[in-house]
């Protein structure tokens, strides 16, 4: 007589548990991506924690402007959490998963790409797919620009939404350097005959890691292995050439390679002081913007190496446990709007390259992007057409670790 009772009790208990599990994420926030208007209504009053690299004041000021508009138009309080390395945010999400925090995460929106996106996606730590349902997503014209659907060779599958483009662009001070080197090998030759004129940020600062990847791509003649997950055999084989290159390059660098600038801004400062005559940045308009602000002398010119340079897209992702997903999506959609993209590309503000396809816009809208008059300090449009794809994301941490092992204590 007793047995069925306890039995039914335990079944009821398990059912309740399953029910709770099923309903808890749903009750936390049920989101209907097909009805954008109700999603915007749902997002009203939310506070969205946007974790984004805070190392560039221009970007921070742009995001402050976005925050103002988000509050005004959508009643969303956008908090820019300035982080120094996106890996911090990744490990925060991982830690929250370990602690069982599955629906009240501290990050709602994340500026991400490359190895960090790969890590989160691989471990099912992202919410989605949602990105391709954003009303403004059509503006990027992914049919013409397939890179909007691929992040360092990894398909985005709607788990992240593009918001800006980046490309490695070199710049030089024409006062000291008349004809800048045109590829990675020329940089070595030039540096050896002009010691102390060049350096690069020390990895794992992202700009320094990008320089390593650029050199590796060129030195290996775009070896296809770079576009597949790294294996130790392939790494040994390809990196060998890079180490030989760096071993030859370092003695000719600024401070004979015994010091490397800590960040992209440090590198720019060395250029502004006239300590070096060749540098590089990930924002094609970096030189133009810095000349305008007085940080760089007016004699600075930009260009792209002749074999092309690494270019990538910056994306926005929503962690699986974000507590304000609707607000995060409304924000991501706004960042893709013509208005936000125009402001971002305005050299008086952030000066970045838009993610949306300008040529597809009507002439009226296109005009708001044409404020960039041709400027001597900016790279030419033809230059910017020479793009190289980022290697598979697994190469980045492998290169960084190996660099630190080899060069951090010489």
């Amino acid at each position, binding site marked *: 007589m007793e047995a069925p009772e306890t039995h039914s009790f335990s079944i009821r208990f398990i059912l309740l548990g399953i029910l709770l599990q099923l309903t808890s994420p749903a009750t936390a926030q049920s989101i209907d991506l097909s009805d954008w208007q109700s999603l915007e209504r749902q997002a009203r009053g939310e506070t969205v924690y946007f974790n984004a690299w805070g*190392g560039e*004041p221009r970007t921070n*000021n742009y995001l*402050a402007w976005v925050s103002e508009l988000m509050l005004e138009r959508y009643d969303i309080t956008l908090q820019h959490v300035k982080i*120094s*390395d996106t*890996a*911090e945010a*990744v*490990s*925060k999400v991982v*830690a929250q998963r370990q602690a069982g925090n599955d629906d009240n995460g501290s990050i709602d929106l994340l500026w991400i790409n490359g190895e960090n996106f790969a890590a989160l996606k691989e471990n099912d730590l992202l919410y989605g797919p949602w990105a391709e349902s954003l009303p403004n997503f059509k503006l990027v014209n992914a049919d013409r620009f397939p890179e909007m659907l691929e992040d360092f060779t990894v398909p985005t599958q709607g788990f992240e939404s593009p918001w800006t483009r980046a490309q490695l662009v070199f710049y030089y001070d024409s006062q*000291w350097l008349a004809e800048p080197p045109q590829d990675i090998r020329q940089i070595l030759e030039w540096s050896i005959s002009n*010691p*102390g004129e060049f350096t690069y940020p*020390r990895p794992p600062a992202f700009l320094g890691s990008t320089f390593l990847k650029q050199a590796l791509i060129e030195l290996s003649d775009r070896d296809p292995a770079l576009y597949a997950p790294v294996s130790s055999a392939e790494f040994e084989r390809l990196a060998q050439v890079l180490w030989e290159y760096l071993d030859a390059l370092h003695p000719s660098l*600024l*401070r*004979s390679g*015994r*010091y*490397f600038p*800590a*960040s*992209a*801004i*440090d590198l720019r*400062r060395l250029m502004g*002081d*006239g*300590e070096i005559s060749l540098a590089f940045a990930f924002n094609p308009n970096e030189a133009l913007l810095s000349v305008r602000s*007085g*940080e760089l*002398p007016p004699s600075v010119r930009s260009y792209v190496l002749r074999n092309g340079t690494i270019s990538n897209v910056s994306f926005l992702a929503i962690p699986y446990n974000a507590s304000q997903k609707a607000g995060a999506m409304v924000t991501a959609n706004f960042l893709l709007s013509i208005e936000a993209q125009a402001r971002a590309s305005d050299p008086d503000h952030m000066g970045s390259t838009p993610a949306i396809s300008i040529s597809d816009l009507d002439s009226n809208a296109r005009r708001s992007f044409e404020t960039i008059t041709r400027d001597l300090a900016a790279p030419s449009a033809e230059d910017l057409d020479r793009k190289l794809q980022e290697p598979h994301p697994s190469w980045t941490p492998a290169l960084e670790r190996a660099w*630190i*092992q080899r*060069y*951090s*204590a*010489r």
Partner: protein
Amino acid sequence: MLRWASHSLLILLAVPILLGTLIAILPAFGYFPTLGGTEFSLDAWRELVQVPGIKRSIQISLLSGVLTPLIALALVFLYLASASGSKLDNWMRRLVSPLLSFPHAAAAFGLAFLIAPSGLLSRLISPGLSGWERPPDLLIINDTWGLTLLFGLIVKEVPFLLLMSLAALPQLQPSKHVELARSLGYRPTIGWLKVIAPNLYPLIRLPVAAVIVFASATVDVALILGPTLPPTLSVRVLAWFNDADLNFRFLAAAGAILQLGTSLLAITIWLCLEKLCAVLWRFWVATGDRGTGERLVFFSGRGAMPIVLLVITGSLVALLVNAFAGPWRYPSVLPSSWTFLHWTNNFQNLLTPLLNTLLISVGSTLSALVLVLATLESERQSGKLRATAMWLLYLPLLVPQIVFLFGFIVLTESMRWQGTMSLVIFGHFLFVLPYVFLSLSEAYRQLDPRWSQVASTLGASPFKSFWRIRIPLLLAPCLTAIAIGMAISISLFLPTQLLGAGRITTITSEAVALSSGASRNLIAVWAVVQLSLPMLGFLAALTVPRLLWRNRTGMREIR
């Protein structure tokens, strides 16, 4: 109740520091239950040995730990031997406190802006004297062996050791003894070194030990001026501690214990140097030589201190110029234009850290002041001048910060008490307390006891006589103690950074964080704010008593 004050003072200091140090040992040997480490192992140490350049990191920490106190102490002694009673001496006595309040991080930034290849000094001599059209390619800041770090530390520690020496000197009656030596035919500087120095040194041994520990384990100064390939041990421990991958905590713990060992080794080396110096000194005194080297001592002593002063002033100027500089091409000595933009653009960002800084420094200093006053008052009422264990007071300065803070965080995290304002204030309190005690105790003990006796005769309770008589009489020293306490709190980096879990930011923590990724102008703005806060404190400590006692001539004479 008062009787408990002195006990609680020592308990509050000793327990977190000793416990923190002990707890840091556990994760170093693999025990860290929250991260799944439940068994003791040597893995972290095996990993630590494999870290590239770890040997060099230790060497640099040792080098600055031994050479900083050695050179700073030599400068202070040479100065005291040659300048006592001179005009320079009068100046220095007045300048030493403000110099001391110059926060380490701001001073380090200023020094970097002064002596970098593109810094103010290089611009001053270019292109005229040097012929440099572009900055010379010299590894000055972040140099491989930490020589600039050493230089920065010496410049900062000279005022500290000088202040400590000046405080200890009167009890030695130096002028009498030097006169005696002179009457025996000794030149005054040689006489001072032979007679006063051996008696002064034992009185400042604890401050010297504090300098050794600080120099071997500093994080903020090393982040700004120290080597980067590889950095000092302390900087590496902090980086491991902050690593996104929490498994690095084990390595960080082992590194922290290694740091403790390194600082202890520096102290051991110092003790050997002490023995050596004692032998040399005895030999030198026994020679009976009365004048050899007198000119050398005289000129180096009188020359070195103005150089230190010049370096500090130059750093200050370099900071101010950068904070208001428009475009500034090398080798122009001054910017082509001046601007407030760096300030107006950052006003918003400055607000929260500024408020936090004030809250933390006021909170920690006032609680320290209350406890110190209670201790001193109980000491007075009980009638026993208890020699409060001085080394215990120095404890927060004698254990490397990163070591005990590490264990302390492990402890508080396990109690789910982390990243809160109260925790940061408590952390600051530990460092503020010794300074408040040291600066207040002398004045408190020396106040004429008859004032309180008169009050008691007139029927005032001990409590009333404390409030109505002693506190007003001691207002000026109390305010000075507050100013010193707040200056110490404002300059702290590591306790804010670690106990605040990166969520609570102060002017100092933000300024140091900018060191690797901001323009010089922006850094200068933060550094100027950082150094003006303690200055304002000292200014208030000077003016408030004057304003308050403007109608009380007698009160103004009391010091």
